[in-house]
């Protein structure tokens, strides 16, 4: 039996097709999100990769910011529950999740059974999210993919003290004009994201294993900065952008078994 999870985010669309609630048959990411062609493209890619048709899919669960805008789902489930489900499936020792996506960051506390016990999300502000990194990447003229590499070379990390993305952008421009090395500025940017993420983590309660997911988890510079701040190891979920879609596909499997 095949089930599908679709995570329609603000900045990307992710689809996972699951076979018998266990094997990932496809996990596709398209880097544009809700309101765009992204969800359909991710879906088409996943179907094409598996050679399946929509009628072969027993159930579909949608999650993410655009979960209600996607019309093909049997059910919508919040991204909090879906990330928890997906990550616990991959790493059952997970007790704390930090997920940083395009426009939100969330800290989720799990119990030993993988149930959500508490969660906190960022307030109505882009600080500490993927969008913050996007803005800095543009100002620094360094691609998102290169940022981790740059921060690893930082000899003397700068401090980016502003919380507000707009103020932080000015701060970074000012540091650039003072001739501070981009490596050091990027390390400061990563530290800024980490400190916002850790504020959420401390509120939810930190317990190992700590696992990071979301698009920002692909940036090792941020993962390392969070680990330094917490003084604890931080694991990265395999294929971290698709853990929400995986959780949705697992919920879809449970739904299909019930019906």
């Amino acid at each position, binding site marked *: 039996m095949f089930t599908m999870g679709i995570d329609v985010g603000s900045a990307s669309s992710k689809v996972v097709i699951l076979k018998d609630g266990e094997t990932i048959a496809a996990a596709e990411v398209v880097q544009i999100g809700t309101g765009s062609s992204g969800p359909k493209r991710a879906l088409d890619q996943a179907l094409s990769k598996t050679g399946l048709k929509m009628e072969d899919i027993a159930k579909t669960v949608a999650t993410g*910011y655009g979960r*209600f805008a996607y019309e093909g789902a049997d059910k919508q*489930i919040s991204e*909090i*529950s879906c990330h928890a489900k997906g990550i616990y499936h991959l790493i059952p020792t997970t007790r704390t999740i930090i997920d940083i996506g395009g426009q939100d960051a969330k800290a989720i506390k799990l119990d030993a059974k993988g149930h*959500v016990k508490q969660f906190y*999300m960022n*307030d*109505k502000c882009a600080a500490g999210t993927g969008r913050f990194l996007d803005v800095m990447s543009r100002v620094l003229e360094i691609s998102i993919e290169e940022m981790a590499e740059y921060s690893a070379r930082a000899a003397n990390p700068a401090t980016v003290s502003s919380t507000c993305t707009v103020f932080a952008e000015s701060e970074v421009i000012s540091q650039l004009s003072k001739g501070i090395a981009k490596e050091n500025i990027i390390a400061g940017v990563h530290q800024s994201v980490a400190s916002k993420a850790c504020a959420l983590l401390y509120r939810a309660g930190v317990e190992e294993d700590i696992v990071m997911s979301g698009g920002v988890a692909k940036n090792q510079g941020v993962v390392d900065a969070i680990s330094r701040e917490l003084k604890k190891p931080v694991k990265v979920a395999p294929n971290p952008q698709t853990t929400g879609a995986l959780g949705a596909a697992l919920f879809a499997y449970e739904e299909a078994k019930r019906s």
Partner: protein
Amino acid sequence: MSELNLESMSAKQLLAYYSEKAYQDANEAHKNGKLICWSASVAPSEFCDAMDICTVYPENHAAAIGARKGSPALLELAEKKGYSIDCCSYARVNFGYLELLKEEALTGVTPQALADAPADRLPLPDLVITCNNLCNTLLKWYENLAAELHIPCIVIDVPFNHTVPMPQYAKDYVKSQFQYAIEQLEQICGRPFDYDKFLEVQKQAQRSVAAWDRVAKMTSYKPSPMNGFDFFNYMALIVCARSKKDSEIVFNKLADELEEKLKKGEYAFGDNEKFRFTWEGIACWPYLGHTFKSLRSLGVLLTGSGYPGMWSLHYTPGNMDEMAEAYASIYTNVALPEKVDAIGKVIEGGKCDGIAYHINRSCKIMSFLTVETADMVKEKTKVPFVTFDGDQTDPSNFSPAQFDTRVQALAEMMEQEAAEKDKKAQ
């Protein structure tokens, strides 16, 4: 209005009738030269009522404007006047409205924005009365109103309750504040305070509060015949007509209707009451419909809220010690353990499965303690909680999608808890 048959009207119709009447009476009183007072929402209304001063409530008025989506224009006016967006949005709506009333009074021409404001007209005040039992913004807000209009400002200063029960010296201090307010009113009105009428007003206030309590009790039934969002609609009268017969009539009518529904097995969500929750904090008035619909789609019924309960002010008429304690001990003016205890009782009373805390950009007193409060309430009650960002009347501080995600996650947590309980029971 005398042609209306009040007996045959529903509680909803009566609410609309008496809410409108409160403003009509105030405007009529203003025309006839009677004194008009603008009052903070939990300032004691009994003193002005005893002196036949017509009282209106800017917080209530701002909430109504917010609910009818009219706040942005007034918020912008207040911001132009220099009020920071970090100030309470009730205050900013009121200051925007004040500017329009002043312009009308000075020019004789009604500004279009005033004509367009989607609320009953507030007459300009002759005095203001405030009380810091709710927050300290109310002091500066009302002092500002008085300064802008060159009118008297009566302040009932109450000490914060670091301990319970409230010590006698604190009650004595509040009573001295009451006494000073009485002296100020005698001076403003040019006649002695009417203690006989004051006692009658106190008695009426207690009858109204008893009727409000009858309504509040209705969400304790499971399933509930009452949708708790109605607290937010009906509370207009416990705020602005607390010491009038009008509120008693409406609340008793509503309680009668709900008791009837309960007898017939008619419930707020029919057969779809999956979970019950407490809304902690002020409503997001501009998004009242959205927040309700979002929760209803999840089968989550509001059955607890501490905010409307703030006006459940109990005292024995004639007993000023009790009156002082009632007004000074509302849950925004007590130490954290007492606040936690009060919220715990709301959760217990409403048989709630979860709680959502409104982190209200406008209301520092109800929001800044939330992180600590939420952890302590969780420890005490074990029910899951979420927080969401919003604002009571500034629509720019609320994101519908973020709210939906948080409450959906709360519903999923409540479902998980229920499944675990079922498993244990088997």
